[in-house]
């Protein structure tokens, strides 16, 4: 189980590969299902053109809530491991924002936990997006429901 904030661009598939390699050593043949979500910065959002984005967070509180969200999912479903990585700082279009990966023996648990972690993260973890648009900077006011 790992939760990390990153201030530089990261490659979700590379991170998954590295993390899973350690998992394969520790739990060979134990997981049957891996559910993964990758959130990526889009270059459009409604009508304007988004040229870049800054992700602000609340150091200390953000990490604590991410840990708690993951712990709650692990309490609700039989999970073998989880990996959560979230960007902060300045992003370019196409940059990954968030990676959530869940390993379980069963697909229903993996799907449900991955989805739950994402929804909780979006509604509770203190991050704020400021988009740089062709009309200037603009704070995203709220997340769309999942």
């Amino acid at each position, binding site marked *: 189980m790992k939760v990390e904030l990153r201030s530089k661009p990261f490659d979700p598939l590379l991170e998954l590969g590295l993390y899973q390699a350690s998992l394969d050593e520790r739990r060979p043949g134990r997981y049957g299902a891996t559910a993964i979500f990758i*959130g990526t910065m889009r270059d459009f959002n409604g009508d304007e053109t988004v040229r870049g984005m800054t992700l602000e967070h*609340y150091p200390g509180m953000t990490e604590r809530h991410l840990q708690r969200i993951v712990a709650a999912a692990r309490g609700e479903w039989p999970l073998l491991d989880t990996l959560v990585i979230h960007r902060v700082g300045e992003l370019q279009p196409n940059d990954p924002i968030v990676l959530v990966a869940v390993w379980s023996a069963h697909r229903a648990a993996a799907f449900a936990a991955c989805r739950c972690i994402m929804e909780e993260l979006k509604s509770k973890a203190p991050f704020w997006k400021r988009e740089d648009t062709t009309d200037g900077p603009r704070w995203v006011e709220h997340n769309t429901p999942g």
Partner: protein
Amino acid sequence: MGIQVKYFASLRDRLGRAEDRLEPRGEVTVAEVWAALWPETPLPPNTLTAVNLEYADPGQVVRDGDEVAFFPPVTGG
């Protein structure tokens, strides 16, 4: 020590500052911390509040040394 106060994101931009410090006179609530610092500015609707890195109601009591934060709805992920 005093109460450390933090503002984030669009709220910080609107207020023009990221932090404040308040010397409490006795027991105060989160709402009273705001009112003491911004007597002419009502707490914007939808503002979220936290005490010592945990979400808190505006009525929660704050003690000397605590950290209070005010911020808009979160938009991560």
